[in-house]
């Protein structure tokens, strides 16, 4: 460990530290991702260079890189690089919007879905092939192609051919490919399921809670969306649980978009996930983007309302863990990977810079490529601000070096954001230029009045409050494996 002494021992060694005062305590963090909670006197002593060098607190703060003259550069640099490992690799996630056709009419749909018969909004095989070729141009050794829609199963023939072609390209390129499908399951059958399992496609669906809440949010003309979802969740779970060698069968997962009708039903929703054998619940807030923006007064909510729901849900999940129930909340899990393990959890929405283009690309059904799925949703509403190229026409280099990509990278750099650069949550947070653009007319946004900022600050407040309890900390560490 390298120790550098101040030239003048009387000069206080004021550290580079961000802080947040709440409830008589002060959370301090640094750029390397270390954190500690102090009382107000200790905080004053830290800033004034008056800490007793013989105290245990001095030793802890020294180890965590809070003392300017006592920095273990090797440790701190290593922690920073680990936490920001995404800066050293290219675009990993490639979202293919196979079709905008859908047989559901979800109240919060942001994808711009159209009626099931509207085949003009299917991705053609030619576009899909070119999109696969573009995705494999990423310099990253491991990539993920995620099929979305609308409902991707509406364009089954192209989906099937694309999966075959992607696996073939994987072998030829030597890269590692993960495939994922996000589906409402309404068009699933045994033959399709077999094909997906054989080709190692991981399956994800939406489950918004008990039947009443799920069907209210996810209107399915063909009948009972909840019933169909559970039927196939159970099917894929059984295939996973009873596998014995051969091709690995992934466990299916589900996620939840929290809408206005979810609020007030935190426990019922968590219980629904537990009852169906799901080990992870992902409580995603709704974003005022694209189609959802138009109906925000009907489906949306204030950050405080979401935070109240989130706090109740997370506390209930922890209670269940204490009773031996295996259930994790995914947002918390991803943030805790950063806070406790200095790891990059691959959460493209919350990193610095954000994942626009450099972390993910969204390939629309017509071959247009966008910085991200959110940027594509803005495009669907008639504004191509976040379009970065076309599959088969644009070079990979032009996509990564165009002004939209650069603009998103620069504007989501927290070091350049007036409020963010000195925020205690900076080491773990990130902004979204698309949400800024849609809600505040600027990719830079204005954090003091930004709802998304308020929301994530609230989530961090909840997490750090819960972390103060050692029992909770133990459970959270178990979630990280």
């Amino acid at each position, binding site marked *: 460990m390298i120790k550098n002494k101040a030239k003048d021992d009387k000069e206080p060694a004021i550290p580079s530290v961000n802080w947040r005062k709440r409830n008589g305590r002060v959370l301090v963090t640094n750029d390397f991702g270390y954190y500690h909670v102090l009382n107000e006197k200790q905080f004053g002593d830290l800033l004034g260079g008056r800490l007793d060098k013989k105290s245990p607190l001095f030793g802890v703060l020294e180890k965590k890189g809070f003392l300017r003259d006592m920095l273990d550069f090797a440790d701190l640099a290593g922690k920073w690089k680990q936490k920001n490992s995404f800066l050293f690799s290219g675009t990993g996630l490639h979202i293919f919007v196979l079709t905008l056709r859908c047989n559901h009419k979800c109240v919060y749909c942001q994808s711009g879905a159209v009626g099931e018969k509207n085949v003009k909004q299917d991705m053609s095989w030619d576009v899909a092939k070119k999109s696969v070729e573009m995705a494999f141009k990423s310099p990253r050794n491991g990539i993920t192609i995620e099929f979305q829609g609308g409902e991707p199963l509406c364009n089954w023939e192209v989906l099937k051919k694309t999966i075959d072609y992607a696996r073939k390209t994987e072998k030829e390129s030597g890269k590692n490919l993960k495939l994922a499908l996000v589906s409402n399951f309404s068009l699933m059958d045994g033959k399709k399921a077999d094909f997906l399992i054989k080709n190692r496609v991981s399956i994800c669906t939406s489950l918004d809670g008990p039947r009443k809440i799920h069907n209210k949010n996810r209107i399915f003309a063909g009948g009972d969306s909840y019933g169909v979802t559970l039927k196939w969740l159970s099917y894929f779970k059984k295939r996973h649980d009873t596998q014995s060698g051969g091709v690995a069968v992934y466990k299916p997962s589900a996620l939840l978009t929290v809408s206005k009708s979810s609020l007030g039903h935190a426990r019922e929703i968590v219980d629904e996930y537990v009852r169906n054998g799901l080990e992870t619940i992902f409580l995603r807030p709704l974003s005022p983007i694209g189609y959802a923006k138009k109906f925000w007064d009907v489906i949306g909510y204030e950050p405080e309302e979401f935070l109240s729901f989130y706090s109740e849900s997370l506390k209930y999940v922890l209670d269940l863990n204490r009773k031996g129930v295996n259930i994790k909340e995914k947002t918390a899990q991803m943030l805790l990977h950063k806070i406790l393990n200095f790891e990059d959890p691959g959460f493209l929405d919350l990193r610095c810079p954000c994942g626009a283009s450099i972390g993910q690309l969204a390939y629309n059904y017509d071959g247009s490529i966008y910085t991200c799925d959110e940027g594509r949703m803005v495009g669907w509403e008639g504004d191509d601000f976040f379009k970065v190229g076309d599959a088969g026409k644009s070079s990979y280099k032009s996509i*990564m070096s165009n002004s939209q990509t650069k603009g998103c990278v620069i504007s989501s750099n927290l070091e*350049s954001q007036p409020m963010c650069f000195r925020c205690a949550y900076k080491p773990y947070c990130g902004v979204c230029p698309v949400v800024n653009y849609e809600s505040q007319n600027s990719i830079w946004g204005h954090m003091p009045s930004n709802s998304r900022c308020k929301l994530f600050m609230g989530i961090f407040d909840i997490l750090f409050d819960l972390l103060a309890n050692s029992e909770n900390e133990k459970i959270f560490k178990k979630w990280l494996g």
Partner: protein
Amino acid sequence: METYEERVDAGIYSREALKLASFIVSHGRVYVSGKNGKITVRVKAEKAELFFKKLMNEALNQQCRIDVARNNSKIARLIVTKSLLSALGK
């Protein structure tokens, strides 16, 4: 159209910040003159005084951003450059 003007402190509001603000708060005309620490900002708009206040609010926002960018430019540039180069495979 009304006219409104005030002298502002160049130590707080740089010309760059005022220029950026005038692009954003764009529903009026902005004229900046003066030197040696004092700038006069004259505006022409419907409800000129209100427009002036919005302009100066935005100028403060832009000045804050300029100051942050200047102070953090080294690390900001490192992060942006690294992420874009990695995305290109370099």
